[in-house]
């Protein structure tokens, strides 16, 4: 699949923002039910930054539209379309999250804050799942049509969000050890899920062949013919690129792909774990960690698109997808 920068930025930034905000809202619950009393203001700053990231991501998502003047219609198919659901729940999240932050800032009664916090966490999860389900609901793309996609989106959103919160709160008086443990734990689980997903990608499950796409397997071949009749593309019928080749028949060079795989493992997982583990408080290191994390996530999301192979590629001569 073609990897549009706008969609990569949207899913990475919104995911990170939603994960971070879910943790900020969960912290409200944690301080309600335990006797914690560390400063609220830095947490509110973290929440505001997370909210800004979500809004920035949503702005990037509109750049992907070829006809954005009709974007306001995108809530019309809530009953069947995950994109519709995402649009509706994203607006609901923004409103609830803003109300939650406002309530904390103005010191509204704890009861209302807890209700808003629970709503915000729930909506953040729903938005992340809706984004992932846009991809996971597409049957022609084997790499996406799996439960692994929402799982990875949820884990990466929370892991990157947790790292962001550690980086933001690093310079404050707040005890960082539990937060570092949380971020490291989420990163480890996310790495495990990513490893399993990449094993699935390389595996043979649910692949479709050119022969099946042409009906050779059950139609063209006819009764009584051997099962191994092979097909190959002679001519694709057009002399230059088409919408289909630009959108679906995109293959990264092996060097770029390998570089992205390394950038992902280092930037998202290994270097972040090292930074969390060393534990010294240094604002430059914290800023650097976020830059490295974002670079790693961009590589991760780029791979998510370019490694996904649509069945249209079969009609363009690919043997299996």
């Amino acid at each position: 699949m073609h990897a549009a920068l706008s969609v990569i930025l949207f899913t990475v930034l919104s995911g990170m923002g939603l994960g971070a905000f879910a943790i900020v809202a969960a912290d409200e619950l944690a301080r309600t039910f335990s006797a914690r009393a560390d400063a609220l203001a830095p947490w509110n700053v973290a929440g505001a930054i997370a909210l800004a990231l979500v809004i920035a991501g949503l702005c990037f998502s509109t750049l992907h539209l070829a006809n954005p003047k009709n974007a306001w219609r995108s809530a019309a198919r809530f009953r069947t379309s995950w994109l519709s659901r995402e649009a509706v729940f994203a607006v609901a999240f923004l409103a609830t999250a803003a109300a939650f932050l406002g309530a904390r800032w103005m010191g509204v009664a704890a009861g209302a804050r807890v209700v808003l916090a629970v709503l915000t966490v729930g909506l953040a999860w729903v938005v992340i799942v809706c984004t992932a389900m846009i991809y996971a609901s597409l049957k022609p793309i084997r790499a996406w049509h799996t439960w692994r996609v929402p799982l990875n989106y949820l884990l990466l959103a929370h892991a990157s969000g947790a790292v962001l919160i550690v980086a933001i709160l690093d310079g404050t008086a707040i005890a960082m050890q539990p937060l570092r443990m949380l971020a490291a734990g989420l990163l480890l689980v996310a790495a495990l899920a990513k490893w399993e997903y990449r094993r699935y990608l390389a595996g043979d499950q649910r692949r479709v062949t050119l022969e099946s796409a042409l009906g050779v397997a059950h139609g063209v071949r006819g009764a009584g013919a051997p099962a191994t009749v092979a097909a190959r593309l002679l001519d694709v019928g057009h002399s230059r690129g088409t919408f289909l080749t630009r959108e679906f028949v995109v293959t990264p060079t092996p060097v770029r792909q390998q570089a992205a795989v390394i950038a992902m493992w280092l930037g998202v997982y290994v270097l972040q774990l090292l930074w969390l583990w060393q534990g010294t408080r240094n604002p430059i290191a914290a800023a650097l960690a976020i830059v490295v994390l974002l670079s790693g996530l961009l590589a991760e999301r780029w791979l998510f698109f370019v490694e996904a192979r649509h069945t249209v590629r079969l009609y363009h001569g690919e043997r299996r997808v």
Partner: protein
Amino acid sequence: MKLGLVIDLDTCVGCHACATACKEWNGASAISGPLTDDSPYGADPTGVWFNRVRHYEVGEFPGCKTINFPMSCLHCEDAACVSVCPTGASYKREDGIVLVDQDRCMGCNLCAWACPYGARELDPASGTMKKCTLCVDRIYDQSLPVEEREPACVLACPTHARHFGDFDDPQSKVSQLTASRNGFGLLGELDYKPVNRYLPPRTPPQAASPAPAVASEGALARLIARARAAITG
């Protein structure tokens, strides 16, 4: 009603007349025209087509066949392009035709991703998704003679490899052809229930038979055997 096409892979000669007739009719159509081109006379021409013809070789020599394979929207009964559309621009009519309302589409590409057949193409000039309309502005047009109330691709086909009709009617030409010639749908494993049917070649392609042993030991036979070995490596 379940309107759709039957495409005969036995008689299709791959001339692209259906594709060009489609481009001509729908390019001037008010339903989703124009079908714009980008640098049509330049070095890298590209444009929107509702119908594309590809060519494959199936089977192995000497039992192989060239199969010309026209593809347009298959007007699926379970059309994911319609259900994923967030704006409601994509819709399926009572007669089975899947259309895109050009005034509602926001150009998000999701329907094209959901279509396993590559039936939808984004027109960058309008920013909207375009696709086969089954010539909805021809097939019901009372001002046309009855025999011309068919999709442009069907009328243009010089070998009568394309047929249009209602698959819900067991007496229709398309139903009869599908039944008598073992018509099949594409990518059944994805379960989109495509309506269009393809008719297999009357002589099916064959897999390679075991290499014939060179029994006769003449000079010519040895020469042929060596030539064949040189060619096939």
